[in-house]
């Protein structure tokens, strides 16, 4: 076939000569019959007929016409697209948006669900945990981890990391910085088959609570912070005031299996003698590497045995609904983003469908206008297949151009995703615009070509030559096209109603999250954090530092109130313990029953946070003579634990966990579990000593900006306490972080919806504008016969209204079915909220009316004389 193609010139010449011989023989015979040479030549040519047609027919038989014809079609299509730049730009842009969005979302889905994990033999890796449905978490308590690691028969390695991911450590030096540390068991890197780029992994003794302290640096941190010097191996760095030895550098390709950015890895304290009877225990996330040839069922059986032993050892710790979780790591990593990704995939798919429908519409309009050209070409011998192929080539070229443009969108979109959604979507750091993504784009656009390129091409290929030519230039659209174009626009409207409804619901959620009553005043509220871990500040020194800082803070102009606190109003306590009261039996130790958050605060907390007192009084300076004896609870706690009685004067939270505390007041709830959750019970206690850590946290209500306050504070502290690290944040920032992921969802879906909406409105407009142009003669006649401009206006508007209404109704029905899947992402608004749908439909209706008004007006002011002469 290829050889044939390249030989084509020769073969064509061959055939040319064969035909020439034919003509000459004919001529000679005619001359023999007595014609003059000239006449004979002319007659011979006449008798022969259409020579190029014969050439073409023969070429087809010889079979190498396809490629040549494809080039011809392609050149012709390119010429046409160049000739209508407005159309081309509109079509390419909308298709590129559709293809780009779909490709970006599918690439992420591909990374999350399909791409192999970046670990050797990743199929052997599994997530192992105990599920605690009552607190909605999965983890393994440290004693159970130690027991399971020792006693299991199915894992090569069972490795642990911290379950609550963010472990911030302070890297000391002249200018202290915070670093994100991953804390892991010593066998962690072996479990994931990761070998350091330089140096070694952790030794077994390095995970012992009093063992040597070692760190491995990530490649990035090593280069940023140590300029990639090899001689840092073996050197000692101060972390939280303790000396740590750098034993290795992680490879560039290392990906931490928990989705959090880390700068270095160090060890968890794993005590080989950990037991359920210890005073405290940790909760860990555990990953296992299965032994070769072990089936998941065997693993599960083994884990069930181990869990049964754990339960027998500490029955009070576990409830009946606790269960063992065993998941292949890949499944665990895909996790609960399924819903979000499916929604995004649906939205992107909708957008692509709308873009396709719109371009198909534009193409149909163009082809209707070209029906005369097509008919002429059919009349002079172009077969139906030939015409359809030509039109198909035009579509394919359009989509090819769009795909090229889409790749630019995809690269930008993926970068945006990585930037804004890193916390939302797992493994996002692995997403890159690579060959795989291009492959996905190719698949998406190929599907686009097949689905919508073929359909209109087949329709347009079916040209009724006679009827078109008889209409001689009147170039009306065949009836089939008109119905098809309206159906396409109705589909566009329906899909954009679906997208708009989803986006509006998310928007309302965001609005509720940001504007619902927080229970405190976040504006002008700052937190000042001073990490003291490992430093020499203990007991009295810490007290002195706290009072120094408070004095400084109060002296800074603009400060209204400042207090030490163990937690901010956004978090429900520094510790979570089982509720107890002196007039009831004590709950068992580690009883995972009714909990309450405990937060030690100073007397100015109420004023600083801006919370209101509901009953009784708040803590006063005098209360701090006897710390940890007085409590103020929030309304959620009063409701939960003192239903129908007054909590004032009751003794709570005593026994094993400390002295009993007298309740002296009740404060209003704050959103202490995230913005989309109801408040949980919380008790504020007169305790400014070390909480769960020795770090100091201050809440400051101030009129000064955070920058000014930070400068003033650091200035004051530098003299008294050099080398202290202070971190100052506004509560607004903290709230911003909490709303980051809903905001991201909303922005994304809103963008999709806005583009879809725009395309649909343009669709409505173009169908009507085209229809007016086509019907101008008919409209002219109507007006000549006495139709008023108002009647003409109504005629066109009605045409638009029918399409839009049909689409909107279908859209609402579709949205009611589909937005159910949004439920988990919504807060403060129901997925079936009638107001939302009403607003969407009204808005769309108004926009569509505006879009149909323009062509309708043009029809109404049409001059009948001009209109009738137009053709």
């Amino acid at each position, binding site marked *: 076939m290829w050889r044939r193609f390249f030989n084509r010139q020769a073969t064509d010449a061959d055939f040319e000569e*064969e035909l020439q*011989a*034919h003509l000459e*023989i004919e001529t000679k015979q005619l001359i023999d019959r007595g014609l003059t040479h000239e006449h004979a030549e002319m007659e011979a040519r006449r008798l022969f007929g259409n020579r190029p047609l014969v050439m073409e*027919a023969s070429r087809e038989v010889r*079979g190498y016409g396809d490629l040549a014809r494809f080039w011809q079609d392609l050149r012709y299509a390119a010429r046409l697209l160049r000739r209508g730049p407005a159309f081309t730009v509109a079509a390419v842009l909308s298709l590129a948006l559709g293809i780009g969005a779909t490709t970006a979302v599918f690439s992420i889905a591909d990374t999350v669900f399909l791409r192999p994990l970046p670990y050797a033999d990743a199929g052997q890796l599994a997530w192992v945990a105990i599920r605690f449905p009552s607190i909605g978490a999965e983890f393994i308590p440290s004693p159970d981890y130690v027991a399971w690691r020792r006693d299991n028969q199915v894992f090569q390695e069972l490795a642990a990391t911290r379950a609550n991911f963010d472990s911030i450590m302070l890297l000391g030096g002249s200018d202290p910085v915070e670093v994100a540390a991953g804390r892991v068991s010593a066998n962690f890197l072996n479990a994931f088959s990761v070998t350091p780029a330089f140096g070694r992994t952790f030794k077994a003794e390095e995970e012992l609570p009093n063992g040597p302290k070692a760190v491995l640096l990530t490649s990035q941190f090593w280069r940023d912070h140590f300029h990639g010097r090899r001689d840092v191996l073996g050197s000692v760095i101060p972390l939280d005031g303790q000396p740590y030895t750098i034993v290795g550098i992680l490879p560039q390709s290392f990906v931490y299996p928990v989705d959090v950015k880390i700068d270095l890895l160090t060890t968890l304290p794993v005590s080989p003698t950990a037991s359920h009877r210890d005073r405290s225990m940790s909760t860990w996330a555990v990953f296992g590497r299965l032994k070769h040839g072990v089936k998941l069922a065997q693993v599960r059986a083994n884990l069930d045995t181990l869990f049964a032993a754990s339960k027998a050892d500490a029955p009070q710790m576990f409830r009946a609904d606790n269960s063992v979780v065993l998941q292949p790591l890949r499944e665990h990593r895909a996790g609960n983003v399924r819903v979000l990704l499916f929604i995004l995939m649906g939205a992107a798919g909708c957008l692509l469908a709308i873009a396709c429908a719109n371009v198909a519409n534009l193409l149909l309009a163009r082809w209707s206008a070209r029906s005369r050209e097509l008919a002429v070409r059919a009349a002079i011998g172009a077969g139906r297949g030939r015409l359809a192929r030509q039109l198909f080539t035009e579509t394919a070229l359009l989509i090819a151009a769009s795909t090229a443009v889409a790749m630019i969108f995809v690269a930008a979109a993926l970068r945006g995703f990585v930037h804004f959604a890193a916390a939302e979507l797992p493994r996002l750091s692995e997403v890159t615009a690579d060959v795989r993504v291009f492959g996905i784009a190719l698949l998406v656009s190929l599907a686009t070509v097949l689905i919508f390129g073929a359909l209109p091409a087949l329709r347009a290929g079916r040209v009724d030559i006679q009827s078109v030519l008889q209409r001689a230039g009147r170039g009306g659209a065949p009836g089939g096209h008109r119905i098809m174009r309206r159906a396409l626009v109705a589909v566009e409207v329906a899909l954009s109603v679906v997208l708009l409804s989803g986006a509006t619901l998310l928007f309302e959620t965001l609005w509720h999250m940001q504007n619902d009553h927080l229970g405190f005043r976040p504006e002008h509220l700052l937190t000042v954090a001073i990490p003291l871990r490992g430093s020499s500040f203990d007991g009295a020194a810490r007290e002195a530092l706290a009072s120094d800082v408070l004095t400084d803070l109060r002296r800074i102009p603009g400060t209204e109130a400042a207090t030490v606190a163990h937690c901010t109003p956004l978090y429900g306590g520094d510790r979570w313990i089982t509720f107890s009261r002196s007039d009831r039996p004590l709950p068992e130790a580690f009883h995972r029953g009714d909990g309450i958050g405990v937060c030690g605060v100073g007397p100015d907390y109420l004023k600083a946070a801006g919370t209101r007192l509901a009953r009784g009084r708040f803590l006063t300076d005098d209360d701090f003579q006897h710390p940890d004896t007085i409590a103020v609870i929030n309304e959620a706690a009063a409701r939960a634990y003192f239903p129908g009685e007054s909590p004032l004067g009751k003794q709570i939270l005593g026994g094993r966990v400390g002295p009993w505390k007298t309740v002296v007041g009740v404060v209003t709830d704050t959103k202490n579990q995230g913005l989309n959750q109801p408040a949980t019970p919380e008790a504020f206690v007169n305790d400014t000593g070390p909480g769960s850590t020795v770090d100091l946290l201050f809440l400051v209500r101030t009129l000064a900006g955070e920058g000014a306050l930070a400068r003033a504070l650091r200035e004051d502290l530098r003299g008294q306490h050099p080398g202290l690290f202070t971190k100052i944040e506004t509560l607004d920032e903290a709230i911003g972080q909490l709303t980051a992921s809903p905001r991201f969802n909303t922005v994304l879906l809103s963008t999709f919806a806005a583009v879809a909406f725009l395309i649909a409105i343009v669709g409505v407009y173009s169908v009507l504008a085209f229809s007016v142009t086509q019907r101008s003669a008919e409209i002219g006649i109507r007006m000549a016969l006495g139709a008023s401009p108002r009647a003409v206006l109504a005629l066109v508007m009605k045409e638009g209204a029918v399409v839009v209404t049909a689409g909107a109704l279908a859209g609402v029905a579709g949205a009611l079915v589909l937005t159910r899947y949004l439920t988990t992402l919504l807060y403060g608004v129901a997925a079936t909220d009638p107001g939302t749908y009403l607003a969407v439909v009204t808005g769309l209706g108004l926009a569509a009316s505006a879009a149909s008004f323009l062509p309708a007006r043009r029809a109404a002011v049409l001059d009948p004389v001009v209109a009738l002469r137009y053709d």
Partner: protein
Amino acid sequence: MPNRIEFIQGTLDLLILQVLRWGPQHGHGIGQAIRIRSQEVLQVEHGSLYPALHRLEQKGWLASEWKMSEANRRARYYRLTPNGRRQLIEEQSRWKQLVRAVARTMKPVKE
């Protein structure tokens, strides 16, 4: 114009093979031979003839070579290959069957 008859699908191939039984011939000659032997009833369109020749050559039933023609110039002469000869015999018997069948169908029914 004499009465012309549209070719039934496949008949042209048969006619070409038949004409070439008497020896090599060029395209013009084949067309003329069909016209003359059918007493001007069958007019072969050149747009059908040449594609048919090329198709038959591709199937291996014809072979072609360049030879001097009566017009004193090079022309392409087609001749039957052994395969073509076998094909011709097959087509002939099929044609006879067809003719007989059509004739029987067309015969007026006796009352």
